[in-house]
């Protein structure tokens, strides 16, 4: 456990030393926060609720979405890409620790950092100027926390699987971008999927995307009540299992190849 904890600490130290980045990232988040709040206020002007969601809930939705965006900024894909490019990824595989635990610790370190540097300030600014992002109830909040952890795992596994692709093709170029756009739009990170035409909504239920952003947030604002929330968490667990197995399979394949070709 020790090396992984140390990794988290290193990440924290690194993040603290980049003071411009901290500030600039925060400014970006605040811009995003205000722009989406104005956007929804304009959309709701004179309208009580759409799809049983009122203006206040929608504002909370966008605040929480921005916060989740911070938590989900996962670096495993990028770490692998850079290492494959420099050709020193084989060295990592030879270290006496599991490198994916190492990458995971790094990312957890990032989450801890962003809670301190971004999320708490965002919550304060949002409460003061836009809306107090209060959960629908304590039960909803607990279910939200559980489902966010699941979302995180889904996101992380998707990133890690994409990272593993770099072993085959040194540069998958814009493919990673395409994946990111898909996730952003299909997960309801900005516009909830419940506003989409019914046929698309029905299709998206069978894909993992909505379980990353929309599902936990709708639990938070109370659009999803506790019982369906539990079902949703079960579905998330199934996705985690699926992606976990896929990841394990690809990883074993890659490791075998590295042993044969020597990186």
């Amino acid at each position, binding site marked *: 456990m020790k090396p992984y904890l140390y990794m988290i600490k290193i990440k924290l130290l690194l993040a603290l030393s*980049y003071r*411009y*980045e901290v500030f*600039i*990232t925060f*400014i*970006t988040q605040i*811009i*995003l926060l*205000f*722009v989406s709040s*104005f*956007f929804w*206020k*304009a*959309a*709701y*002007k*004179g*309208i009580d609720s*759409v*799809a049983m969601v009122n203006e206040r809930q929608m504002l909370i939705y966008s605040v929480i979405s921005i916060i989740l965006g911070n938590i989900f900024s996962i670096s495993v894909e990028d770490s692998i890409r850079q290492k494959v490019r420099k050709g020193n990824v084989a060295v990592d595989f030879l270290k006496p620790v599991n490198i994916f635990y190492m990458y995971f610790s790094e990312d957890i370190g990032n989450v801890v950092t962003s809670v301190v540097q971004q999320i708490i300030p965002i919550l304060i600014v949002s409460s003061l100027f836009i809306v107090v992002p209060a959960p629908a109830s304590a039960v909803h909040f607990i279910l939200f926390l559980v489902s966010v952890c699941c979302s995180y795992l889904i996101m992380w596994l998707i990133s890690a699987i994409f990272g593993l692709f770099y072993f085959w093709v040194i*540069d*998958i*170029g*814009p*493919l990673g*971008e*395409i994946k990111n*756009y898909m996730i*952003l*739009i299909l997960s309801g990170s*900005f*516009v909830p999927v419940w*506003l*989409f035409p019914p046929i698309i909504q029905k299709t998206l239920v069978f894909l993992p995307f909505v379980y990353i952003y929309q599902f936990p947030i709708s639990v938070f604002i109370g659009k999803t009540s506790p019982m369906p929330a539990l079902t949703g968490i079960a579905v998330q667990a199934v996705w985690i299992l699926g992606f976990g197995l896929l990841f394990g399979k690809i990883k074993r394949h890659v490791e075998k190849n590295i042993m044969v070709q020597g990186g």
Partner: protein
Amino acid sequence: MKTLSRYGLMAMTLLKINIQRGLEYPAHLIGWLISNPLQFIFGLITIKVVISNFQALGGWSFEQTVFLYGLGIISHGLSVVLFIQTWYMGFLITEGELDRMLVRPLNVFFQFCFFDFNFIGLTDMLPGIIIFTYGCMAASFQFTLANTLNLLLALVGATALRGGLYTIIGALSFWIQRSRQLIGVQWKLFDYSAKYPMNIYPPIVQGIFTFLLPIGFICFYPASQLLYANAGFALPGNLCLWTFAVGIGFYMLGMMVFKIGLRWYESCGS
């Protein structure tokens, strides 16, 4: 005159070289051809979904918003082609590329603009033109002589305005070592300002985007004039002409900041 033709010839050579470079990686090119349009299609879906579920945003119908959005993407594409290297300025400085430019007998700013001419930006242009054409038809925009001229003025102005702002932000890397993320901020700002009618924001924000950081001119003001749509503030005169003037002004400002930055670099190093 002689230097002008020399720089013209140089620019042509660099253009050729950069197209050649791009063609070295056909897979990337195809990747961008898919991913960039995808991004804009998703943007369009967002607008469609929200307007059809709620109402016209700030009095702008879906068709008008598409026109606005398309106009924004075209000037974005043009600015990517022409000014992308300003995004990497910090990188060019830390990697010593700037030193190299300083020991070449050419204007440094010219080298910045043309040594990495990026025609990947054209993959933005294509969806931009399609979306814009659709917007023109849907919002029944009339291609009269006056309208066409105004449109051209607006496009040139918007591209120059983006270029100027990119250059200013890029030149900040002379002072701040890691200004790369600032570019992210700017990107988000432009992205939103281009996507939605600006009059959905409170007057103070509109004021900032008009008089301080005039991104309203990138597409909102010209589009509002060309479509007779709600512009929030009632600005006097021809808004497309204003866009042109503001664009050229900001571009010059960008060059000035760059020059000052370069002088600072020469006295401080990296």
